[in-house]
């Protein structure tokens, strides 16, 4: 009769690499996504948790708001001239009534007179205007 030696003790296999992959619907992704929102980053900056912004990944935080992107086709230059006071009073009244700025009233009139003025350049780009 043959006797076999009792086998040596083996440590259990602890192989974290054998775990399943992180599932795409794991809640951590939703949490991480929420931490990428501009308002959450601003809050983290205010709280001191974030002290430097990675411009590559905080694009939403740094990009200008959509409505403020200029659509003008040419740079603006200053023009100063004198007009009779009653003309200016009428322009102001029309602005009060219609909301069309004096600049745009003049540009519209010039276009009617045959001067090229593109649609994109007749916009009121002051804060909050469309």
């Amino acid at each position: 009769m043959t006797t076999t030696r009792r086998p040596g003790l083996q440590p259990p296999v602890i192989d974290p690499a054998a775990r399943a992959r992180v599932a795409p619907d794991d809640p951590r992704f939703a949490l991480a996504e929420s931490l990428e929102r501009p308002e959450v980053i601003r809050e983290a900056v205010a709280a001191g948790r974030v002290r430097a912004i990675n411009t590559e990944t905080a694009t939403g935080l740094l990009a200008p708001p959509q409505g403020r992107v200029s659509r003008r086709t040419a740079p603006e230059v200053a023009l100063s001239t004198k007009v009779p006071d009653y003309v200016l009073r009428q322009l102001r009244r029309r602005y009060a009534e219609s909301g069309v700025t004096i600049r745009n009233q003049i540009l519209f009139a010039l276009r009617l007179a045959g001067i090229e003025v593109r649609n994109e350049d007749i916009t009121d780009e002051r804060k909050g205007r469309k």
Partner: protein
Amino acid sequence: MAIITFAQMKGGSGKTTLAKCMVAEFVARGRSVAAMDLDPNRPLGRFVACIPELAGVEVAVPDSERRVSVVVRDLAARHDTVVIDLMGAATNDTQVAMALSDLVIVPSQMSEDDFRGGIETWRQIEEAEAVARRPIARGVVMVRTSAGAIRPRVEGFLREAYEKAGVRVLAASFGERTVWKEMNYAHWVPPLHDRDSHAAQNFAAIFDELLGLLAELPADAAA
């Protein structure tokens, strides 16, 4: 298997060198690994690109179209392990990467600045863990320690200081060796090319200890 992040609020602490070795070690062990390089200088991406054995490793970088969370979710669906290398600062990416991670590794040299950065990083991981409501494994790796048998006084002092602050420090430390600095120049990576070397064995000890931290997580914590 896991999303692993290298984080430290102080720059130049050894995050990228450890991340390079980590990627190489996974490849040497035949594991599927991808990386995300969040350092705008792209040191990890350059390293992977110059080592032929790492040609199959995907290194993602952020772009304006896809957020970090989206890129990592995509990588994690296709690879067993995702390694994230962060910038050396408390950035907007730090909290995102921590929220995604199963394991966060905090490299620390022995300066006071590294210690302060290490403690701050640790606190952020704790915070991320509370917000995520799941355990995040973590450990500090002492970096640029003496590769010889004699441990300098400051290393023991610092280990004690970390432990007093409730921070777990790995028993294995990353020894100061010229070979780590030469990896990009020589295209020679000890974990890949010279696994019997002291350098490779040094990193393997760190690697095994880190996997041990992951193994301590409850089975349903690290997916």
